[in-house]
């Protein structure tokens, strides 16, 4: 081995063998000794690769300008497997034509490719005789190679929170300081270092503590790395975390920012000149595109259609009969606007529009991941927060600030200073707590599972708020969008103050799991008056519970006495008194003889637990007491906790994880935002939110950046979402992907104009509704013409309104509503569901009424069947766009399901009671279910059908016994109603 250049790096290469060994399968002497890196390979790399892979740009964390850089590898780990071109990423990327990327330089020639293949096969020789293994050896070991190992293997018990043996292994200093048994490391002497001795002895990490601590055994290569570091004297280097600076970012260029959605939102957008369509700005933009495609607006929908459409759109429920009456008669255009205001003011509005946000946030009432699927007791507070925010028209900017950094907006440490707003801030951060989280169970509370939770939250945030798919960048730089691997981990760092994979909190403290080692991620913040009220309320319960327990105690004593007396009676008479005396004598007062006697007869005279349970009298009391205590406890109150996310002030360092693997840490990074969304010269400045807060302020800085008035994505993504829920299709069809692979906007100027309008009008969502709903564009009829089918089959140009099926909640809520079974109590704990053996999950009614579907419990594994059948998604982790399926199960459900049948009966009974003749019954039915009057034709046909049905029922009942008989007319009407509620006219909105 030539040590010529190595010597300055490695005075004593103590443990060098360990890395190289197996890599030298191919002997460099065999094969083509004429090839050399400097003369043959480097020129090719310089020509084709180093424009991006140089020490400054470091694309994919890779520097190909030197042999050392080549062997340092990149974000995907080693790029050259010596002797094995087919396993070398370098060769694979070139060979597959993946590099250089399209438009970023010319492909390698066949000869060049062949040269690289032969060079790798030949063992990667260097002209100057350096062996490639030397480069691997030379990879310096410093504290940043060691600390990540400590974090995943040791600091769970020897770190910030827990410090077993008074030992902290987080830093070089703390290792030198050591714990109870002395310093953990001795510089230059791995064999004398306690740390390694304990590891080598197999004592650390302790095998029987692994699962409780969420740690997996240390690997031999990690041990070797530690040994090498110690032997080198535990060298440290001064590396600042990689963050954005005022220097231009080299990894993301201005070229990368050319994509339409990465451009800052313009300050103003010109509205196309007024045109025949009228003066509404939306119409101006839309009609411009229509004209260009030789299309024109459809005629306006008639007032009955419009009424039904607007009611479902804003509230998810049909108009009441009174509304229909008054609006349809009216000819005043202002009445339409007044109705919009009325609907927007209705509390039902938030129950519909909040649901869209909950889908995107991935709302669920349980943790998921494990089959136990623990219930999230307080998730509902976030649901209520969202509904309220929509009803109050909370500015979207504020809505985001609270959800992303509510804990950093205001001090919540002093209970006496709390305000409802401060509580809301904390509840809002539930947004970042919605992803499935199985880490409450010890067996899946290892670092990779925690990373999964963080990654899911970043995914939700990315697709919901930014309209970007960040997922790919977790393992490597994004293939299509200019999001480097580095930027993903800068985002991880933003969250690390709260979500620290090395300082974890469990989602809820689950029964039977390691108590104490991990605290629960739940905030106990409440007004003092709340606590008092709860204490006051509960005051009277404890004595009652005590009384019940007393009852049980006496029942036990009675059973015991009975057994004692019975057994005593069986003893020889002369013994009885003596035994009785012994039993009545306190243990310490017994003499030796008594002790003996007691030992002899104790078991015979005492009831075993089994016997006790089988004593009928006792069993009866036990059942009563248990039931009583259960019901008392159910009536007791508790101070609700907050399922929040909060910054804890001391994040562990964040490293890039090569290939997304936490065992392959790369560079140290600091918090930051995706560089492509900035000018690349603006540092990210988190500041402590208020003095003494003990918080990093990272998420607050991030949230403030999101709601800047010219942010490229925030407003565009949200107005597009609003648009989609009004029109069935976004201006950008891919709601969650505004990147390269996403759809392009059909009306880019309109999107920008809407976004700017949104920001200018205080980020008011209701303002956007008013704007859209008053447009001609939205008021068009949904009729499809031949022209539409040829020129605009997908309704891309909005040449008509799109027909849509009711969404899951709309179907269910409407059936409940028209059957007069709707309980409009808002908020609070989710309504219970009943899970039948056959898998049917149904709501449990209260006083024969049901609340709206948004209040039904949504445990991931027990989703209400009704809603699921109509495409309510399972959140894993989020739903950006619900499927709209059309399957036989829906027909079966609406025809045969018991709850539906029950609702239909109530609906029919209500209508029958209100009107006695069949004509007015039919009219009422049409008004309630379809929000319109029947046509003359429908009336005639309905009358005939009812008569036929009635005849059949009468015939049927004539053969039934007296108590089976029902009114044939009512039965006929019920069947008729059931058919109407299965019809397309009911389920589809024009």
């Amino acid at each position: 081995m030539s040590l010529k250049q190595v010597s300055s790096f490695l005075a004593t290469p103590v443990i060098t063998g360990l890395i190289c060994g197996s890599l030298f399968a191919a002997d460099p002497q065999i094969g083509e000794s004429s090839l050399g890196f400097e003369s043959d390979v480097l020129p090719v790399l310089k020509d084709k690769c180093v424009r991006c892979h140089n020490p400054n740009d470091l694309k994919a964390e890779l520097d190909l300008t030197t042999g050392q850089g080549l062997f340092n590898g990149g974000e995907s780990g080693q790029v050259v497997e010596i002797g094995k071109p087919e396993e070398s990423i370098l060769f694979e990327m070139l060979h597959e034509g993946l590099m250089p990327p399209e438009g970023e330089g010319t492909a390698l020639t066949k000869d060049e490719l062949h040269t690289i293949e032969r060079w790798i096969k030949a063992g990667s020789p260097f002209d100057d005789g350096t062996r490639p293994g030397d480069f691997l050896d030379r990879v310096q070991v410093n504290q940043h190679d060691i600390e990540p190992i400590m974090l995943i293997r040791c600091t769970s018990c020897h770190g910030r929170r827990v410090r077993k043996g008074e030992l902290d292994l987080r830093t070089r200093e703390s290792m030198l300081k050591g714990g109870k048994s002395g310093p953990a490391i001795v510089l230059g002497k791995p064999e004398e270092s306690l740390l390694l001795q304990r590891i080598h002895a197999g004592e650390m990490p302790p095998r029987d503590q692994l699962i409780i601590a969420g740690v997996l055994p240390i690997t031999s290569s990690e041990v070797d790395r530690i040994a090498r570091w110690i032997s080198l004297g535990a060298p440290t280097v001064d590396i600042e975390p990689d963050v954005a600076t005022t220097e231009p970012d080299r990894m993301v260029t201005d070229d990368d920012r050319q994509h339409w959605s990465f451009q800052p939102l313009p300050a103003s957008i010109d509205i196309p000149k007024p045109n025949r369509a009228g003066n509404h700005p939306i119409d101006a933009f839309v009609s411009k595109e229509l004209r260009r495609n030789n299309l024109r607006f459809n005629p306006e929908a008639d007032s009955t259609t419009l009424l039904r459409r607007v009611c479902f759109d804003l509230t998810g429920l049909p108009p009441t009969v009174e509304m229909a009456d008054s609006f349809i008669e009216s000819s005043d255009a202002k009445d339409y606007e007044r109705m919009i205001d009325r609907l927007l003011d209705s509390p039902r509005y938030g129950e519909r529009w909040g649901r869209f946000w909950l889908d995107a946030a991935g709302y669920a009432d349980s943790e998921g991941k494990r089959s136990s699927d623990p219930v999230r007791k307080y998730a509902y507070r976030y649901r209520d927060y969202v509904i309220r925010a929509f009803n109050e028209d909370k500015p979207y900017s504020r809505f985001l600030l609270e959800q992303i950094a509510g804990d950093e907006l205001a001090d919540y440490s002093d209970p006496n200073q709390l305000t409802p707003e401060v509580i809301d801030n904390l509840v809002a951060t539930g947004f970042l707590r919605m992803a499935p989280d199985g880490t409450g169970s010890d067996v899946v509370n290892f670092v990779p599972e925690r990373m999964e939770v963080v990654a899911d939250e970043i995914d939700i945030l990315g697709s919901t708020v930014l309209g970007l798919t960040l997922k790919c960048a977790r393992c490597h730089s994004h293939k299509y969008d200019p999001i480097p691997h580095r930027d993903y981990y800068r985002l991880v760092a933003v969250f690390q103050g709260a979500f620290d994979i090395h300082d974890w909190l469990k989602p809820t403290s689950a029964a039977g799991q390691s108590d104490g080692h991990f605290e629960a991620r739940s905030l106990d913040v409440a007004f003092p008056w709340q606590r008092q009220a709860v204490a006051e309320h509960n005051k009277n319960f404890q004595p009652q519970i005590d009384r019940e327990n007393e009852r049980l105690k006496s029942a036990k004593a009675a059973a015991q006495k009975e057994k004692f007396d019975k057994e005593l009676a069986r003893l020889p008479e002369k013994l009885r008194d003596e035994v009785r005396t012994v039993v009545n004598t306190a243990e310490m007062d017994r003499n030796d003889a008594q002790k003996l006697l007691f030992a002899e007869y104790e078991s015979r005279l005492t009831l075993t637990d089994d016997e006790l349970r089988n004593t009928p009298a006792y069993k009866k009391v036990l059942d009563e007491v248990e039931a009583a205590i259960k019901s008392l406890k159910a009536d007791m109150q508790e101070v609700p906790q907050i399922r929040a996310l909060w910054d804890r002030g001391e994040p562990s360092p964040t490293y890039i994880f090569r290939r997304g693997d936490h065992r392959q840490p790369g560079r140290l990074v600091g918090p930051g935002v995706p560089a492509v969304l900035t000018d690349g010269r603006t540092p990210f400045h988190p500041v402590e939110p208020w003095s003494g807060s003990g918080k990093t302020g990272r998420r607050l800085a991030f949230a403030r950046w999101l709601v800047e008035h010219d942010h490229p994505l925030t407003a565009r993504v949200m107005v597009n979402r609003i648009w989609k829920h009004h029109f069935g299709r976004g201006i950008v069809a891919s709601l969650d992907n505004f990147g390269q692979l996403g759809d392009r906007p059909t009306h880019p100027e309109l999107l920008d104009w809407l976004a700017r309008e949104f920001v200018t009008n205080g980020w008011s969502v209701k303002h956007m509704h008013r704007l859209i709903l008053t447009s001609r564009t939205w008021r068009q009829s949904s009729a499809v013409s031949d022209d539409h089918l040829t020129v605009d089959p997908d309704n891309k140009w909005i040449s008509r309104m799109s027909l849509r099926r009711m969404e899951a909640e709309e179907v269910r809520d409407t059936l409940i509503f028209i059957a007069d079974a709707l309980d409009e109590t808002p908020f609070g704990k989710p309504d219970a569901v009943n899970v039948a053996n056959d898998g049917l999950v149904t709501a449990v009614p209260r006083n024969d009424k049901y609340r709206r579907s948004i209040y039904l419990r949504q445990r991931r594994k027990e989703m209400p069947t009704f809603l699921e059948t109509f495409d309510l998604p399972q959140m894993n982790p989020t739903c950006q766009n619900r499927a709209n399926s059309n399957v036989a199960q829906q027909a079966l459900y609406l025809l045969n399901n018991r709850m539906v049948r029950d609702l239909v009966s109530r609906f029919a009974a209500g209508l029958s009671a209100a009107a006695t003749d069949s004509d007015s019954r039919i009219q009422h039915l049409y008004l309630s279910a379809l929000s319109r009057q029947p046509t003359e034709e429908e009336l005639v046909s309905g009358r005939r059908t009812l008569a036929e049905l009635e005849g059949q029922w009468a015939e049927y009942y004539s053969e039934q016994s007296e108590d089976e008989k029902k009114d044939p007319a009512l039965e006929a009407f019920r069947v008729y109603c059931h058919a109407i509620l299965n019809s397309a006219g009911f389920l589809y909105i024009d």
Partner: protein
Amino acid sequence: MTVQHHHHLDRRSFFDHVGSGLYGAALAQLLGGDLIASESSHNRPVHNLLPQQPVHEPKAKAMIHLFMNGGPSQMDLFDPKPELTKRHGEPYFKKIAGEVEFIDSVGALKRSPYKFRQHGECGMSVSEVMPHLAQQVDDIALIRSMHTTTFAHEHALYKIHSGRMLSAYPSLGSWVTYGLGSENQNLPAYVVLDDPGGLPVNGVENWQAGFLPPVYQGTRFRSTGSPVLDLEPGTEKPEKVVKLQRDLLNRLDNFHRKQRPGQPVLDARIANYELAARMQLEANDTLDLSQESEETLEMYGINDPKTESYGRRCLIARRLVESGVRFVQLYIRSQIWDSHRNLASGLRSACEFTDKPVAALLKDLRQRGLIDSTLVVWGGEFGRLPIAQLAGSNSEKTSGRDHNKNAMVTWFAGAGIKGGTQYGTTDELGFAAEENKVSVQDWHATILHLLGLDHEKLLLERLGLEEKLTHVFEAHIIDGILS
């Protein structure tokens, strides 16, 4: 790379093709089909269950997956370990700590309570608790060297079903029906026969379609009563009333549709109501075991309360495959194979529950010639440890075995399989797979291969990623078991 995909039927040409024969040709297209064809989802392909062309000549047309949830113990059923018997009682925990879930109840090495004998021409060793299967060993290819990546039920179940340790990824059956469609348009393509006694761990997630369209999700058939939820009207209605109601609905919908030309989704939904009616007939028919001979019922053990439940499902599985269902998956209530304690008696009763029906299924498929076109796969989500898990006392009788991800056992039978094969080995104690190791993705790739699919080509593009059942993991077809 070519994407193996469905006809990206343009919605309009689709309905042009259907024409006016709403209840005729349209049905064939729509049955069971999910018609994502609303205006709002312009660019999504229409997903249906029409038969698809495999990428290569398939060995098997259908598959029955006998899923043994809970983790059957390999060293007590198929992988005898004399060394384990010899070293019974020796402490071993320290060597495998970190691989054990319940560290509070670890015991020493534990021998199998059962005797093994060699069977068939191939001389395969099978435990005494599987006497019926022992008669069929020349038809099966046994793999002793399979392993997985986690010892927690939920995650191991996700892994074996979807290739990932996470929830929300499409299951094997969903991928298969996505790739192949169905031969019978009146029945679901992917049928799950779960235990009337309760759902397995992970519940319905085991057969979910994940990000594949919901039409590829497994449909649960109950093995008694009405097979599909809400298939039957709950109350009795005179036949004539039912007919009147159906006619009324048709009339309403046709009237509605005529006023709205050019709205294909309305056509589709009318056909769906017709499908609901046909499904009612055919689904009920497959469950009608009265069409089977007394000998057949006896062979499956349907007349014996011990085997009735699983026997019924095995027989229904055969009937479904016979009717052209592509993928049938059988589950067992809770986890009868999860032998944490009382292994000696518990494992025996798990075998009593399944052994006879499983053997009967193989025999029956052979007798009917279905074995040449049907693949049968048996196995669970992981294996078990060679050490004992103690239940309170140190008794051998009450002790069991904890989960083990390093070795598990599975077998294949039927189309394309070299019967009598014994593939792969474990170490002398049965703790870890050693020779010819088979990973979960190898297992997946092999199944897809036998069904005429290619794990590298069965793709779905999503969020910029090409999603595959085998993900980015290396996967090899297990050539050693193929005929």
